[in-house]
């Protein structure tokens, strides 16, 4: 083996090591050290364009799995602006049952009379990052979201990074066999 070949092989090994280290530094530590950031597609998601679960869908049997019911509910709950939040909460109420339905109805009524949301131009956007069953509670699911609240007519939220939030959701199987959200308790 010539010394030239040895140099080339050493160079190749060096390149591989460099890429491995860069991948470790960027991929391995970036998520833990850097502030969480919303993916671009998520931050620009237009809340009004999202499909809203309807009472019809719930009454016709809901969703095929508990996870899907919770995920769809959460996605609508965290993506709204001051101009459509009441309508979206009403839609969530119609698509849910039990405590979740009552909570959404109450929230819809409250935001309709809340001048702070409209006056500040407040919007909330986020992504559903995880939906997992709660150990020991077969009908409960822990929902982890990454959300950012903004205000177009106020500086109150300026500079705040997206933050993690946890909600405990309950689901119920409807007579038609589908799953609907029956409880919704944001914990943070």
């Amino acid at each position, binding site marked *: 083996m010539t010394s030239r070949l040895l140099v080339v092989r050493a160079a190749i*090994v*060096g*390149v591989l090591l460099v890429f491995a280290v860069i991948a470790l530094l960027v991929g391995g530590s970036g998520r833990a050290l850097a502030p969480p950031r919303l993916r671009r597609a998520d931050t620009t998601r237009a809340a009004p364009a999202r499909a809203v679960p309807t009472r019809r869908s719930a009454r016709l049997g809901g969703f095929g799995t508990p996870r899907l019911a919770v995920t769809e509910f959460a996605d609508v709950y965290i993506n709204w602006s001051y101009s459509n939040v009441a309508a979206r909460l009403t839609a969530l109420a119609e698509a849910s049952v039990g405590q979740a339905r009552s909570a959404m109805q109450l*929230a819809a009524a409250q935001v309709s009379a809340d001048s702070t949301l409209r006056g500040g131009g407040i919007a909330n956007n986020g992504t559903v990052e995880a939906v997992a069953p709660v150990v020991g509670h077969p009908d409960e699911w822990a929902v982890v979201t990454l959300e950012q*609240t903004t205000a177009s007519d106020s500086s*109150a*939220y300026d*500079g*705040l990074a997206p933050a993690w939030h946890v909600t405990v959701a309950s689901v119920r199987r409807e007579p038609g066999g589908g799953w609907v959200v029956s409880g919704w308790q944001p914990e943070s």
Partner: protein
Amino acid sequence: MSGRSQHSGQTLVAVVGLAAMLGLGVLVTGFSMLGGLTGQALADCDSGLSAGSVAIALQSPGGGATVGASEYGGSGDPSSGTVGSSGVNLDSSPDSYAELGGTTFATADALGGLAYGTPLRITWGKHSAIAYKRDIGLGGGPIDGYPRVVDLWWEFARALGIPYQDGEWSGVVKVERPPSTGAGNTLGQTRLAEDPSGGRNAVACAASVGGPLPVTNGPRAVIEPNDLAAAPVDAPVAVKGIIAAGNEIVGKPYVYGGGHGLPLSEVAPSYDCSSSVAHLLWGGGLLPVDTDMTAEEFESWGLSGPGKWVTLYASSNHVFMYIAGIRWDTHNAAGAADGSSGIGWHPLVREDSGFVARHPVGL
């Protein structure tokens, strides 16, 4: 350095440093083998991984309470290290601050004992920015007459325009809790929304003291016919904890010196003004359990002026306070319509000349 406590991050620092050296060594080896990169390129690569890679977005000046602040960290203050007591590498998260007041998380409560990760809008001069609690520190004496409550990580201070003085800078800033974010908080549905104490004591207290805490949908607390108070449903948990602790001792007999010398978590047979106020503030997670203060000492507690939710009025002879619009006092000082005659909740505003108004940070 500003009296900041040492913390247990040295091992982590060593591991991170060793890993960084190994990684850099491999990088140098690989690049040297290729023979294609200059020292400048290596320097660029390194700077991309070092402090300052996280941008701190400056905002227009904010409001809030005026407090004393100092800076720490950086090349002129190596003893402060680079890992906060929260375990976070501050070089990688330069938008950080340390809450001062003690050597442990429980005692470093100059801002009320905020949870790690709590954002604060900090204003110095014409700029403000958001910083997150990732450390605690010992602190020191007042700065220009204001209590020293916060240590700013040197890069955050620099971003605000504060000149770096090797960790020796101190001055006055404004601190303000930004609103809670997320749909649950914004829509008022979160169980633990707006908890400036980090839920340290308030949650347990509010949940356990005197049975379930009555709540009201209005913005102000309400005195119920049984002389207990109902807290606004949207009040911060610390406020609910204060009210719950108050309900626990409503109607206790007034005895001068009563309640002093006992842990604040205990219900004493009797109270005076300062011991009862201390019990309530403990309930809100705003005082350590072994605190024993006189009325006069409350004259310099917390921050100057009235608060949004909680305002104490203290003098050398007496202390009372307002919580969510109702008054905690040891007698019906505003007359016969001022509720019960003894220790408890009172609906009316009373004379406060001769008293100093104080409030807890964030409330």
